[in-house]
């Protein structure tokens, strides 16, 4: 598990696509779709 974190950390500098930005971009895109009424009701 710890090794996995460290391996993951080393791999991070290999690609620039940040998980943070991905979460922001996809999150906002989904919110826009909900606002536009494109997505159906999401129950819990």
């Amino acid at each position: 598990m710890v090794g996995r974190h460290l391996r993951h950390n080393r791999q991070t500098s290999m690609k620039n696509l940040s998980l943070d930005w991905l979460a922001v971009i996809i999150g906002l895109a989904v919110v826009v779709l909900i606002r536009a009424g494109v997505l159906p009701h999401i129950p819990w």
Partner: protein
Amino acid sequence: MNPPVEQTSGDVIAARPGILSLIPGVVLLAFLGYLGKLTEQSIAAYCKAHHVALPNIEYVLWAILYGLTVANTVGVPRICRAGIETYEFFLKIGIVFLGVRFLLGDVLKLGAISLGFVAIELAISIALMTWLGKRFRLSPKLTSLLAIGSSICGVSAIIAAKGAIDADDEDASYAIGAILALGAFSLFTFPAIGHALGMSDHAFGLWVGLAVDNTAEATAAGALYSDTAAKFAVLAKTARNATIGFVVLAYAIYWARKDQAQQITNKADFLWRKFPKFVLGFLLISLLATLNVFSKPQTADIANLSRWAFLLTFAGVGLRTNIRELRQQGLRPLVVGAAGEITVAVVTLGLVYGAARSWGI
């Protein structure tokens, strides 16, 4: 040669063969998370039908327990491992969606209070960890990593700091192991303490957000208490995460002055790279909600998406907790970490109580 400093707190999509390789793990996260939700609903339905009064065990705990059981019995299948790492993405997107449940004014008010507490917590934690590290003869850099991990935000902070202060892999492993072990422990102790003290949802959420190290564990511990507590735990934890760059920068400068880490030439760039960007998404959606951009059903839909994302996160928390590996991390870093954590928990509890009285939060 020092390792590159550009390792970010906002972890990155690692080199992977392709998005298809993520699917089995994501399916496993969704399956265990949904199983947790079904278990809670089934028990509640049974109790209602048979007029049995049992304490309600939230889906959060079931999802974590199912994940723990799989990881520590049959083990996580190799095909699922890449996808399970995405639990961190689901945590971040869940926090972005959670912004819809806050008005920006509340975010700024509670965020400012949280930041004030973080400053106090940070000073105490660093002083205490430094003293304990010397006392237990830990290496100075391991002590720094433990102080950063316990005062700011757990594993992400340690990973961000490791590159910046040029710490050994072994030290980082010890610090991460200690923080993860303590995070798993806090999942079960914090809600019990909160109930014993009769804490309000707001106060408990704030306390958990300030005292529990990893964002996933802080969210889960809050959700184990109540939905509202989870909301406030995320807010406080997010405020804490936002300070990561400043703390890591301070440590990087400290070690660079001792010629044991590389110099930071552009501090503003360093701070921006370490800043958790998902906080911006959270703030933006909170701003849109404040401006009444969403109708009531749309707000509910976005809040539900946040819950679904957290559901997968909680299953991931269980799946990545390997009890045997945690045991192998050695006792001394764990003892230092635990002593620091307990102190931070007690101090932040006092701060939250004081704030509850003064500002009525």
